[in-house]
């Protein structure tokens, strides 16, 4: 069942086109990850879905209600976590939650009923009286998420919720998202971390307001045209130059080794021979799987 439907959306700011004839849909209980470089239009897209900005053309509906005309019906369904820290740093954890509860019209007893489960899954219970400004990065993000969840929204729009957060806190954050998904929520998340994209049901690559690619993350990695090799040699500038000189390859330094990217037209046996000619024996060369980031960069380059 489609919950969020965006059709042929266009949004411009003066001469800048932020979202360019963009369409996508999210089903009930689905996590959709949106990935794109700075200025790809992700935040404009999210603000449009949340009814925060007017758009130029297209249709946006949530649970069948039109964002432009029936936002009163959409507001109770929707939770939005913007990219920038949206909490009051001088208020405590609980005061922030209470403030958001007030915004959504929860009564005192409704709030008391609601805060328990929120504390439980966020792990924020022991910190209920700590100032939000004194929380660690990961905990701030969990509090911001809890605030967005105060009215039990069915659709969650999360704009880079884990940027600047350490790997363990990011893992915990995604465990919460997965739990919400199990309870039937639909989540649309943007992130610069490809390991998070891999946890989504579907990924959409966005660039210059348009859709570059869309699909389940493990299917997207199959779109890489060419191959990737890990070459175990000293990753010096000189080595990079030597391999680049072979032509039709891209080289990237990767810790104590090099990654060599070939295009679809490369004959791999010949490449192995050419590498041997510059002193790189075949036993130092190992084919590896292209990652989501490799596919993304290749698609952006076209």
């Amino acid at each position: 069942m489609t919950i969020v439907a965006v059709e042929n959306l266009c949004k411009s700011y003066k001469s800048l086109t932020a979202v360019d004839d963009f369409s996508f849909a999210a089903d009930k209980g689905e996590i959709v990850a949106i990935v794109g470089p700075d200025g790809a239009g992700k935040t404009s897209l999210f603000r449009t879905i949340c009814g925060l900005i007017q758009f130029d053309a297209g249709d946006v509906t949530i649970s069948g209600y039109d964002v432009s005309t029936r936002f009163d019906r959409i507001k109770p369904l929707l939770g939005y976590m913007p990219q920038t820290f949206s909490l009051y740093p001088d208020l405590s954890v609980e005061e922030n939650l209470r403030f958001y509860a007030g915004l959504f019209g929860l009564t005192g007893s409704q709030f008391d009923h609601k805060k328990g489960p929120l504390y439980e899954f966020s792990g924020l219970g022991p910190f209920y009286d700590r100032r939000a400004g004194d929380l660690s990065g990961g905990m701030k993000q969990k509090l911001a998420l809890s605030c967005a969840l105060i009215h039990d929204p069915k659709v969650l729009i999360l704009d880079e919720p884990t940027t600047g957060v350490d790997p363990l806190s990011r893992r915990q954050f995604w465990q919460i998202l997965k739990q919400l998904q199990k309870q039937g929520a639909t989540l649309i998340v943007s992130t610069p971390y490809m390991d998070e994209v891999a946890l989504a049901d579907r990924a959409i690559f966005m660039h210059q307001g348009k859709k570059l690619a869309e699909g389940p993350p493990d299917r997207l990695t199959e779109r890489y045209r060419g191959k990737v090799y890990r070459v175990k040699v000293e990753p010096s500038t000189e080595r990079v130059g030597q391999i680049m000189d072979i032509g039709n390859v891209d080289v990237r330094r990767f810790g104590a080794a090099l990654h060599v990217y070939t295009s679809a037209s490369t004959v791999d046996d010949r490449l192995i021979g050419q590498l041997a000619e510059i002193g790189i024996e075949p036993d130092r060369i190992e084919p590896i799987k292209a990652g989501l980031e490799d596919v993304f960069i290749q698609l952006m380059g076209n």
Partner: protein
Amino acid sequence: MVSHPVTIEGLTKKFGSFTAVDKISLEVNKGEIFGFLGANGAGKTTAIRMLCGLLLPTSGSGAVNGYDIYSENEKIKLSIGYMSQKFSLYGDLTGRENLKFYGAVYSLPDKELKERTEEVIDALELKSFIDRPAGSLPVGWRQRLALSAAILHRPAILFLDEPTGGVDPVFRRKFWEILYDLADQGTTLFVTTHYMDEAEFCRRISIMHRGRIIEIGSPQEVVARHHQRDLQETFITLISGRDADG
């Protein structure tokens, strides 16, 4: 030129009863890319501030570029480069004007400043946006500009505190190519990041938890030691095994 631009022994910093950095010891080799990892709040920033001569330790010893971290911190400040995730440039000034400003901070003679400005514009490919106000640039470009300002005075060691936070994958890739070139020319790089794929670009890494260094070695060694699939899993296993305090 010293062979170990960073040597610290038992370095400790206390704020009242709170121990932010707890007896850390470390040697970083010249020309090495060293990844200084840890969870939010583990004490990384406090440690870096001591290494940069901005904060005096409570106890322990150490030297950066051969200068003592207690008595020669002014010399340390002039001999290092520092760049953080936070935007450190003047938004109303153009890139070129920002570089001129940083040149003055480091007392570069006019002639040298001109030469170096052209060199960094070339090396970091800044030409297309160097004359635009820094505040108007996308994050990835700003970070490249901030890096150029940090290396203008040819520091022997560069401290990078989450330099790629909020930067998209294409820019991150470009940024790391530049870092590898710098390391290749002998600059030592001391980097913090929350991207574990970037941590794998480092020659050696350390993982900090609650003020202590709990693991150190090449990314491959560290992963193998804990029998994990990759650095991300190793990091999560190591930290979550020690506490569950979000």
